């Protein structure tokens, strides 16, 4: 196992953890954290590929992903705070009003 395989396996492991948590956790905020984990796994893969090929393309993409993740976290957390003010819960199972 060389470094690329190891780093890619680590990225996939983090991504898999994120998928598991996103699909199974019922708390909206913990689901958001798992989303961040998934993005983090993708970032690790991008940076390792960029490192192996000796180009900065993957790292530049990683910067863009970090910016998107920051915007997404701020917006989603504000959304959850706004919802929490009205329904006093961030459990995803409690949001059934939009289900026809």
């Amino acid at each position: 196992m060389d470094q690329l395989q190891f780093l890619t396996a680590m990225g996939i492991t983090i991504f898999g953890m994120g998928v598991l948590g996103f699909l199974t956790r019922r708390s909206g905020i913990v689901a958001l954290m798992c989303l961040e984990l998934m993005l983090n796994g993708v970032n690790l893969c991008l940076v390792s590929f960029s490192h192996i090929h000796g180009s900065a393309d993957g790292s530049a993409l990683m910067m863009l992903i970090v910016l998107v993740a920051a915007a997404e976290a701020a917006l989603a957390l504000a959304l959850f705070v706004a919802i929490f003010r009205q329904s006093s819960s961030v459990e995803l199972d409690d949001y059934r009003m939009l289900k026809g």
Partner: protein
Amino acid sequence: MKDPTVFQYLLGTLIFATSMLTVLGKNPVMSAMNLMATLFLTGLMYFSVGAYFVGAVQILIYAGAISVLFIFIVMLLDLKPRYFQIPGRKPVYFLAGGISLLFFVGLIVSVLPALGENGILDFGLIATNELVSGSQTPEAISLRLLSKYMLPFQVTALLLLAAVMGVVVLGKKNKLPESDGGIF
């Protein structure tokens, strides 16, 4: 290509443990703390392959800003601890576990054709000699961002503007007189 160093195996184990605790922990505060640890350790992993600028950005923005935002919100909302297991709805539970396991195993099998080589006991803490000269420097990355990835970079500015406006709108008090209870 070199084998992973002992430092990287140690980091990998710690990242595995902290991400597992993020997903399985029952207290959202502990989940957020473990998320911060995962992001920080990933930054150290970037350091270990010689991508210093990327690692610094990871620690500053991810571990320093985003996870602090998570911890702040979790403490603000004062969430109750919830166990990982879901009462009832077993098919959904197994479906979720199966899908994520499928993702995980499929991707792992595709990248790991040969497990187990020698050279595990390589005590080099940081593999700097692997660094292709000038590939991961701030200069190279910013040149890419401002030439090849100029359009995504500018669109990101629009995205940040939209996010700021959205957060301001969402955080504002609802001034409508007839709103009792709102949408929920």
